[in-house]
């Protein structure tokens, strides 16, 4: 008897990838999910990367309540269609300015739905069924303004329901607190609706504040919200200017700077401030570190929760 050969030659493959490896999977016209929630936890390093690559005609599926990361993708001309029950920044921007104006100008199509329909659609994709039924929305304008949503009689009781079609994501991009090298992702806090976005996606790439050991992940398996990321990307401060629970709060000053730029486009049809913002913070910096340098370490160090 000899020692088994396997442990000497084989090993588990690390899934830590570079930003460009993930971005290279994105093609024009794809349906892309972007995780997070309003002013938190968006994969901004990826979002800036997508813009920089000049990706076009995306169907951008935001979170159940999307923030200005979707607005930015619209402003940068990456999005042909937006699937999101809300695009805004709460008190920082009740309605995403670029979203608002791009829709009004007919530059971007909206797949109109509310949060419950949003999850019904993602769940259908995750379950590999063509639709899921939902009751709320009967009697509203949703089936009129979104022809993909059908009013139908349920086959059991004949009740009137809405059929919400599956929304399958080619790729989901998420931001989380930590993962191990093998794609086990954990959040600080609840992680919003990121699990549902993951479940609807063919591929999922997660940018994380930190990579930790597999043993650290195994200390609390219940915390593993995304058990099978296809790649994890190191991204300290990668959600900036949005918050990353347990790590930093949102950078309101920076968000307001963006909102001012986007509002100039919305209200005065002046794209120059947005162009300047994009040049300064997206197209200009060579990489994520350069972006953070542009923001400034003093600013970053000020974004403390406590």
């Amino acid at each position, binding site marked *: 008897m000899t020692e088994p050969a396997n442990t000497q030659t084989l090993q588990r493959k690390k899934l830590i990838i570079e930003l460009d490896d993930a971005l290279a999977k994105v093609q024009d016209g794809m349906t892309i999910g972007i995780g997070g*929630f*309003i*002013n*938190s*936890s968006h994969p901004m390093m990826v979002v800036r990367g997508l813009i920089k690559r000049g990706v076009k005609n995306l169907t951008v599926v935001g979170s*159940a*309540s999307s923030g200005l990361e979707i607005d930015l993708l619209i402003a940068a001309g990456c999005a042909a269609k937006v699937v*999101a*029950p*809300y*695009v*805004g920044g*709460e*008190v*920082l921007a*009740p*309605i*995403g300015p670029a979203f*608002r104006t791009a*829709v*009004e100008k*007919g530059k971007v199509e*909206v797949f*109109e739905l*509310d*949060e*419950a*329909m*949003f*999850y*019904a659609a*993602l*769940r259908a994709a995750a379950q590999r069924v063509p639709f899921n039924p*939902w*009751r*709320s*929305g*009967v*009697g*509203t*304008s*949703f089936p009129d*303004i979104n022809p993909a949503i059908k009013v139908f009689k349920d086959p059991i009781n004949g*009740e009137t*329901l809405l059929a919400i079609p599956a929304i399958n994501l080619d790729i989901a991009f998420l931001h989380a607190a930590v993962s191990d090298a093998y794609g086990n992702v954990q959040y600080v*806090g*609840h*992680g*919003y*609706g990121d*699990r*549902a976005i993951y479940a609807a996606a063919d591929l999922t790439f997660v940018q994380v504040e930190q990579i930790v050991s597999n043993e650290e992940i195994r200390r609390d398996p219940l915390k593993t919200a995304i058990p099978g990321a296809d790649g994890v990307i190191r991204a300290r401060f990668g959600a900036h200017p*949005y*918050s990353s*629970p*347990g790590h930093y*709060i*949102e950078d309101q000053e920076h968000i307001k700077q963006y909102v001012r730029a986007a509002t100039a486009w919305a209200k005065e049809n002046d794209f120059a401030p947005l162009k300047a913002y994009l040049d300064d913070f997206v197209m200009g910096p060579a990489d994520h570190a350069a972006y953070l340098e542009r923001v400034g370490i003093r600013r970053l160090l000020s974004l403390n*929760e*406590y």
Partner: protein
Amino acid sequence: MQTTAVATTKEIMATVLARDLNDGEWVEVGANLPVPRAGVLLAHLLWGANMKVMIAMTKANVFNEPVIEEFQLITDHRATRWAEAYYIHNDLVENMKFRHKGVFFAGALQIDQYGNSNLIGIGKDYKALKFRGPGAIGVCNATVMNSRFHLVVNAHDKRIFVPKCDFVSALGWGSGGADARTKLGLPGGGPRYVVTPLCVMDFEDNTKRMRLKSLHPGVKVDDVVQNTGFELVIPASVPVTEAPTAEQLHVMRTRIDVGGALR
């Protein structure tokens, strides 16, 4: 209670919402909705020790918190400190049973005489909106699945109170009638109050037309009529909206709204 402090309009609005809430109910404390937030917390602290309060997508019970710190954004992780449970957001939106005991608060761009409301946008043609709204968020579903809801707006004018909403993202009483919702198979009690800076309105039992219920101090019936784009039901006598008691105002100012968002 010796205080004779006078409540602000927003404090009165919050108190109206609080008085409708019962112990044991499930309520959301939205961030950036200071009036409903204060109403919910007022009820919770004064007679709702067993209310289930959702703060920042957690189930919280802040009954024993001396001062309930206010957070500007719903995503503020610091507001999860009180959590007894997390509502994973898709679970929250897909599990509807607990909402039987839920009460919801909705805003709107437009509201019609039957309490139908719109967050989608303004314009006759959906493909060419004059004003694109923020989207319906969770309002379409929450106004169906909770036991009842209140419409709360920060202004009372004819831009908001319109004869007909351009789009309906949250159903009220449809085209009117007490069976407007049940005939569509919808559970939930529908809209109960419409609370504005001028007044409180409810809905007539049979027609479900919007009806003036009370006027905030100093407001006249005509102020409401002039600023409403449809014909309201006006009872023969309209009381003044009941102000918070001294205790209620005290709790509101010392434990709920220390920052003075309602003042």
